[in-house]
């Protein structure tokens, strides 16, 4: 058969094209593999195999401590008489949530309920979830120092549970990682769980870490947590109804026992300079037992002061919000060194020392009096400035550590327990050791006070000593003053010693039971 040249070409091309098409079709099989392999993230299957990898997971659980300084701290402080966030024009109005916190008028659906309280709930649980992930991943593995790391994780998880129990009372005890609806355990059971976990974790932990690991959980940190829960045992192991607290058993002797273990451990001592516990070199404070670590690095710096700083008071500005109320400022003795934490009067730039002007260009003068919390002026309200910045650092990422527990508090807790057990003179003697470093000339309390007067004195001393350290709400609840009246706050219902579970959380987990009164 004779084939014309054109046709040959055509046929050849046809064949070539067909082969080409089939080749493409054959690669199809290979192209239907759709498995996913992330490249810039890790899968848990190939992680947690070495100590270094596990410490990466551990660091993530520690990182949650920073979040406790957000809403957990805000609620603890603003719902007490230590802090108020007045509305200044529109500034800090925020749908009324800050004044709601101060007035204790929150509900599960209110501005504070869906914002601050919900964030506190979510952030604290995230710490627990992160700890559970690492603890469960470690179960089948064997890495160096595993017992220590597991103990740290359990202690950290217990710390987040203390905060949850403190605010929300009964919550589910969860040690696994699946996401599911769960019922609550009673507050007393959570208390027991925390105590058991802390005691178990304590054994493997070191008394002290080397300098390179400063900031990790120690036996002293666990003991401080124990002191804290024993001190609040009547609250934490009690129940709350609309009528208020039905207290559980007191654990005063346990407070003393564990506090003594800390005091006598020779690991900690009172700082002779009270400020050394808070200033930008407070990493070396001998008194701080467990801190939230900060560093002058973007995102890892301590920027707590921003909440109260005026816009122009430092080179890095401020948010001009949190202030204290006049009666709290006035409760401090003028001779008390600790009163210097308040910024009042004409202000100078904290970095440069130059006079600070307000927005309108006039000298900024802070006044302790807030005339109206719903319409405060730019300069109203004394500001708490307990954690002095490093003037050399011109941005908000400051190096101060935040003490979650320090020896000063352990002293006061022991004193309170002693007084409750009738050892009033001994208790006041302890308080006086703290007062000795902040009064020149010395101004000790009389050790002859009656138990009731001593109780008030110790309660007040905790205010002077621990202002802004996030303890005030606990102290007021334990002393029955939380529902009282103070500036811009009327008497509140006794069930408000517990916060409501935010509505959204009840919707996503209908097995949760709302706290009484809400």
């Amino acid at each position: 058969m004779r084939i014309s040249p054109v046709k040959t070409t055509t046929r050849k091309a046809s064949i070539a094209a067909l082969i080409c098409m089939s080749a493409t079709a054959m690669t199809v099989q290979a192209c239907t593999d759709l498995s996913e392999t992330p490249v810039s993230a890790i899968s848990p299957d190939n992680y947690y195999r070495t100590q270094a990898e596990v410490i990466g997971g551990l660091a993530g659980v520690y990182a949650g401590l920073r979040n406790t300084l957000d809403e957990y701290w805000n609620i603890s402080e603003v719902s007490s008489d230590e802090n108020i966030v007045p509305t200044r024009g529109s500034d800090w109005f925020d749908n009324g949530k800050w004044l709601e916190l101060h007035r204790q008028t929150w509900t599960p659906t209110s501005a504070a309920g869906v914002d601050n309280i919900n964030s506190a709930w979510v952030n604290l649980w995230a710490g627990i979830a992160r700890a559970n992930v690492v603890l469960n991943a470690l179960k089948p593995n064997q890495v160096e120092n595993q017992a220590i790391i597991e103990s740290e994780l359990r202690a950290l998880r217990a710390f987040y549970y203390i905060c949850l129990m403190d605010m929300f009372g009964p919550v589910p005890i969860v040690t696994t990682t699946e996401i599911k609806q769960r019922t609550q355990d009673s507050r007393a059971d959570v208390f027991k769980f925390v105590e058991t976990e802390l005691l178990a974790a304590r054994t493997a932990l070191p008394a002290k870490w080397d300098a390179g690991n400063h900031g990790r959980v120690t036996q002293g940190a666990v003991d401080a947590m124990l002191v804290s829960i024993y001190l609040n045992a009547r609250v934490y192991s009690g129940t709350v109804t609309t009528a208020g607290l039905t207290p559980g058993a007191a654990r005063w002797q346990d407070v003393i026992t564990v506090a003594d273990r800390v005091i006598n451990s020779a690991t900690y001592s009172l700082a002779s300079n009270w400020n050394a516990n808070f200033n930008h070199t407070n990493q070396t404070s001998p008194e701080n037992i467990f801190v939230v670590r900060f560093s002058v690095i973007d995102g890892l710096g301590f920027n707590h002061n921003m909440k109260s700083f005026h816009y122009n008071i430092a080179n890095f500005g401020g948010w001009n919000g949190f202030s204290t109320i006049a009666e709290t400022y006035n409760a401090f003795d003028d001779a008390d060194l600790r009163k210097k934490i308040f910024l009042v009067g004409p202000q100078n730039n904290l970095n440069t020392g130059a006079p600070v002007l307000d927005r309108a260009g006039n000298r900024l003068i802070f006044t302790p009096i807030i005339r109206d919390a719903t319409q405060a002026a730019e300069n109203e309200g004394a500001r708490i400035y307990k954690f002095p910045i490093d003037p050399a650092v011109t941005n908000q990422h400051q190096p101060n550590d935040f003490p979650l527990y320090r020896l000063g508090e352990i002293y006061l807790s022991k004193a309170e327990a002693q007084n409750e057990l009738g050892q009033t003179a001994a208790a006041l003697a302890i308080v006086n050791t703290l007062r000795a470093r902040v009064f020149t000339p010395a101004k000790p309390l009389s050790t002859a006070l009656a138990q009731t007067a001593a109780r008030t004195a110790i309660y007040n001393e905790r205010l002077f000593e621990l202002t802004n350290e996030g303890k005030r709400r606990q102290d007021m609840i334990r002393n029955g003053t939380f529902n009282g009246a103070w500036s811009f706050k009327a008497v509140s219902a006794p069930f408000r010693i517990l916060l409501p579970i935010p509505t959204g959380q009840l919707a996503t987990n209908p097995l949760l039971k709302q706290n009484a009164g809400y």
Partner: protein
Amino acid sequence: MKFVRVLGALTAAMMWTVQAHAQGATGTITGKVVDSTSQAPIASAAITIVGTQRGTLSRVDGGYTLTGIPAGTVTVRVTRIGYSAFQQTLGVTGGGTATLDVALKPVAAFLSEVVTVGYGTQRREQITGSVATVKGADANVGVMPNVNGMLAGRVAGVNVTLNTGEPGAGAQVRIRGGTSISASSEPLYVIDGVPINNVETEAGGIGLGGSPSLPRSPLTLLNPSDIANIVVLKDASATAIYGSRGANGVILIETRKGTAGSSQLEYDGYSAMATVARPLDILNGSEYRAFVQQQVTAGNLASSRLTGLGTANTNWQDELTQTAMTQNHNLTFSGGTADTRYRASLNYMNQDGVVIANGFERLQGRLNANTSALGGKLQLGLNLTSSQVNNRYIAFENTGGFEGGVFNNMVNFNPTRPVFSATGSNPYYEVGPGRQSVRNPVALANQIADNAVTNRTLGNVTGSYAFFSSLTGSVNVGVDRSGSVRKNFFPAVSPSGAEFNGRARQVSRDVSSATVQTLLTFKPNLGESQEFEITGGYEHADYNIGEFGAEGRNFLTDAFSYNNLGAGATLLPPFSFRETSRLASFLSRANYSLKNRYFLTGVVRRDGSSRFGEGNKWAVFPAVSGSWRVSEEGFMDNQTLFSNLSIRAGYGIQGNQGVAPYASLTLLGADGGARYVFGSTVFTGVIPTQNPNPDLKWEQTAQSSVAIDYGLKDNRITGTFEFYNKNTTDLLLTVDVPQPAVVPTQLQNIGSVNNRGFEASINAQILNGSTRTLSAGLVLSADRNRVESLGAQQFIASGGVSGQGQSGRNSQRIIPGQPLGTFWGPEFVGVDAAGKQLFNKYTVTRDASGKETGRTLAGTSTSPSGDDEMILGNSQPTFSMGVTSLGTWGKFDLNMLIRSDVGQQVFNNTALVYATKSNALQDKNFLRSALTDGIGIQEPAIFSSRYIEKASFLRLANVTVGYSFKLPGTSGRNGPTRIYLSGDNLLLFTNYSGNDPEVHAASGLASRGIDYLAYPRARTLTTGMRIGF
């Protein structure tokens, strides 16, 4: 092949039936049907003998033969969509053959065109789905940096909202409403057959106290002058061929191709002048001074406030805005032979913003070549676009808190302060040295450097080969690669950079995708009355996105700008990420038509996406649709009203995979927020970054639609009426999960959304003379969107309110039974004697689950609580309308576009925050409307119905007048020279009090209709010309 034989047998049987009727003395009519102007043969013209059932269709060569015609005088009618009907009487003799050649006169209608429908083309009348076409030349008017703008007001059911008036601004494009909540609601874009990955090509900006402005459009790489047609696939039967990505509609962009003939050289270009269309009304210096004086007298402000005022009288808005110039130049040459055609174009565009110190610049080259070889059996094509887009940004916010960028400070900054400082190293006036929470906005615009250059290449090669006349195979390989570097510098002299003593950052981003398509098309010849075509193929696509960035701070000098990061004494850890995903698909479509009257289309696509859980990666998306061209039926022969009448219906299922990759997996991330310091060392923290959902699967949209296509009076009036109903189920929704959880939310397939609507279009050829033509078009659409279910959640709060003192406040709620974009808050009723705002107070009753069962009005309150909040309105229009008009009058031509949205509401967040006198407590300025609102200076800005405004509008979007003539010195072969004058956004009728009612600030899930200090829109005048040499 069996199928073909069956069809063949069927056809034969039908032919036989026709023959069988031919009894007695009969004759034959034969002839040829051609186009009266081009003399080109016309296929598929219907030739009928009036009053009988006898008829046939013309062949591809235009020829036809009618046999068995009873002898005598008969009337032959020849009709073809797109042409005037032809009718003639002639005599037929028994056994004889009469010849009747017919030249049909085309009518000005779109119906005869061949339309790209995705993986192929179809004649307009064959299309059984909802497909709309916009001609590039008609829509490319005025200043058009972005192809999305070409769709606005021109297609029923397509809603285009530019985010802001920024040059190159991104847009929200919604086809038949938004179907999704958490996943993307953006349509799929397909350029020359290649689906593109329409994600941002540049890294995000840095916010100044808020979230940075929304990204500019990634589609600016395309030059609108290169676009021949934009085809919008709206319903399931049209989009199902795109399966998993079709749920939000598909936009097919076809670029212009070369045509055979001698080479053509063409220049077209324009220059434009733009000004701010509607400035904000802000107090000037003396008014502000008078206000402070009055408040000092009233005792509301300290007297020191008066002495603290400056002496200047600065209109910050005037200082920040300008008459902005745009220039655009295109040079095109094209040509070729019958076998090989090419078109090459070069484009340069430079658009300055109406706000100073920002703009958009594009340099783009494009090449298209097609060749046909082997006697037409092999077709090869190439499209290559390479562009460089240079975006110059200024710092403004999408959403924001109490500090902010240019527009926030434009309103806030005290107008008694000067622009420039008399003293100090910084030429600009600032309130003080170092960081400031109010900042000179002119300095912010000029001192902060924020630039990004994107290089993007988009190309595809196609090859098709006809193995047989009925079987064609084709391959389409496309690549899309972009690389960009975004560079930011905040100098130490600026209050925005002082805190860091200078802050410089560079972030590179690369986005690439590669697509391979292989298709086989089988189209057997089934005779004259039937057509059948089946296309099957495979498609594979790979997507890859990565970023790398570094930042330096603490510079000795501002001189380095962003060019020497290492000179910073403080270096932030560099950051990077990469993610990849893949899509594999098998697709098939079959079209069958009978007698050019009955059309049936079936589509099946099996799609696999790497983004979903094991076991849920594959899904099948089917669709079926049909149409009946009633006008082709015999019983329509004796009417002259309808030149075309067609009924269409379709149903199909499409998917949405618009979620991030890896969502089904447990991922551990070295998240910055998980770092912790032990000792003095920062330890990398590794935490789970999401709650995995191994059951994650496609979001599915089932859509049904029915439509009528009509042509009246020889198609002088054409159009469509269409109804659709879309049910989206298994919504990809981010929902809260029970605690404890590593993060509070999880992506789940929960809930459903319904969209139903009506679309109409009318095109009328009003004048059709040789020197005067006038046509007008109207598109109308009404979409009703409703959230059907959100799973266990009663609502999702969205639409976060921006501004000082607004944190935690939301303006919208997604609620089952309500549309997306429902506004939620307290009802404002007035102002009391003390200058406090009053709101309706309600007593609400609830059932056990906490669901509201009733509410009664219980007076008013100055501090609304949760119970006082209710539905305040909705941001979705009742209907949208576009009117176009095209006309010629001798050498003059006119093109006009009017757009209107009616019934929607907008949350004027700008007014909430900046029309509040209490700003003056902080030495901040405010909008003039606050002077007379009766509200006290101490009253904070409280979100309420007061700021939910009616935002219906009618906009004269564009008017273009052109004049065409033969320019001496040009050959005139390539068309006349045309000069034109064009105006954009000339008139706006609205009661909305803000800057512009068409706005989009993204603030939470599926939020829409929020206006927060948007970059102002321009009114633009353009002069341009085109010369064909």
